């Protein structure tokens, strides 16, 4: 019993609402401050929900992070999180920063092409970035230039592919 293939259903693209921006006072002050401190670099300051988003060029990441940590008015001593998001054509590396003294927060974003993802390592700025970068290399194949030891952390030697990426088969099942 072979069923005839169904014609692809025509569907209206659903309207996707955007999350509203709700920056508090601290956030607005910070976005002005960041524009001021990072004026030598080509940065784009925006906002997502309640965080200041700073989009930077991948090659500037290391220098900007250094400034962000050492500048007394920014004072991002604490790297909350380092994550990689796969947007098919590009991989976006996110640095979530937080200042324990001033209690303001920001996200640094750098987009790199999926074919050749290279970002300078920030391990010299925050030592805590070490394993986060290794994880990013493991799961997404982002090469963090300058990282002393980019060996597999979560996966084992000889694992094929980058399982975090969208192109990796989702429910890949093989009998073990």
């Amino acid at each position, binding site marked *: 019993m072979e069923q005839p293939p169904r014609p692809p259903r025509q569907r209206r693209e659903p309207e996707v609402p*955007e*999350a509203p921006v709700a920056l508090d006072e601290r956030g607005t002050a910070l976005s002005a401050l960041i524009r001021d401190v990072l004026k030598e670099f080509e940065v784009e300051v925006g906002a997502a929900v309640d965080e200041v988003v700073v989009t930077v060029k991948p090659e500037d990441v290391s220098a900007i992070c250094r400034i962000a940590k050492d500048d007394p008015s920014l004072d991002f001593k604490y790297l*909350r999180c380092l*994550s990689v998001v*796969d947007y098919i054509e590009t991989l976006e590396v996110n640095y979530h920063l937080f200042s*324990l003294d001033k209690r303001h927060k920001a996200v640094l974003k750098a987009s790199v092409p999926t074919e050749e993802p290279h970002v300078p390592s920030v391990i010299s700025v925050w*030592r805590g*970035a070490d*394993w986060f970068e290794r994880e990013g290399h493991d799961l997404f194949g982002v090469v963090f230039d300058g990282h002393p030891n980019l060996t597999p952390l979560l996966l084992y030697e000889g694992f094929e592919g980058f399982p975090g990426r969208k192109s990796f088969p*989702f429910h890949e099942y093989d009998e073990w």
Partner: protein
Amino acid sequence: MQVQQQARTADTIDLMINMGPQHPSTHGVFRVVIWVDGERIVKAEPHIGYLHRGSEKLCEGELYSQVITLFDRLDYVANLNCELAFCLAVEKLMALEVPDRASYIRVILCELNRIASHMLFYGVYGLDVGAMTPILYGFRERERIQGLFESVTGARMMHNFIRVGGVKEDLRDDFEPRMAVLLEELKQGIEECDDLLSQNEMFLARTKGIGTIGPTEAIDFGVTGPSLRASGVLEDVRISEPYSIYERFDFGVPVGTYGDCWDRYYVRVEEMRQSLKIIEQAMAQMEPGPVAANVRRIARPPKGEVYVRTESPRGDFGVFLVSDGSDKPYRLKVRAPSFANLQALQYLLRDAYVADAVVILGSIDIILGEVDR
């Protein structure tokens, strides 16, 4: 120091010892390779990933309501705290108002879970330093808390109780009397546990001044939670970036001095008392009302991204949620506190004895489920 230098110049080689993945005190399947010179550690190299289950990837294929099950199993000692972090992230994205009663229930359960988690730490830490009884006292308290959890959520560990927009269902009628009994028992139990171990001479000898880390280094390594507070930094997400309804409670934040193993241990013991305080206040303030906001069964948060920090028993538990407007998260990154805390291990293990390695590892209280995810 000089003696050590001389010893190093002698013609010896360091002995490599592999601890783990199966070792009674690696707290799961953690592996650390240490090189020792006699009984002193020269170098240590942690290896993780023996419990990497691909949760983050699996989350991308689940509905928002289903993701909670996977979050339960991340930090499997503090399940409710993980659930809360995820639900807060989704709610923030959807700009949802959570009913008051639901928030109170969440806080009460999360603080109970914090006590349960610290009780596990207390017991296992006793085992690490070689005392075999504390673990049984710790688990006695845990068992009591789990009994209450069971009556509320229906499960001992994997609750799946905190949902987007509220909680699954209202508390049962017998909750308040049970809670009153439990609070009394816990108060007594915590004091008993404290008496049993904290000021024991041998315990002090084993943990005081061992594995110290200063505030600057701790922040640099991304150490958070009790381990950071033990180094003398007053940083608690519940205070510095209050989430849910934590700003309504009056509670203390214990802070250590030296950042050694004993401080890390005692900060946790003290935190249990403070959690009890929060629970008492919450019980007094809670009023009847709805327990869930009006959310569609299949939640579709708007497009956007959000990062939420919560204070889990192990530290700053962050959830980075990227949504593309569909019913499944586009990307979910979990910032696990144990993962970051564990990075400091190499630093902590410098110049320690082999026996101290176990004590230091125990004091940062890792849960492999969230380290490897």
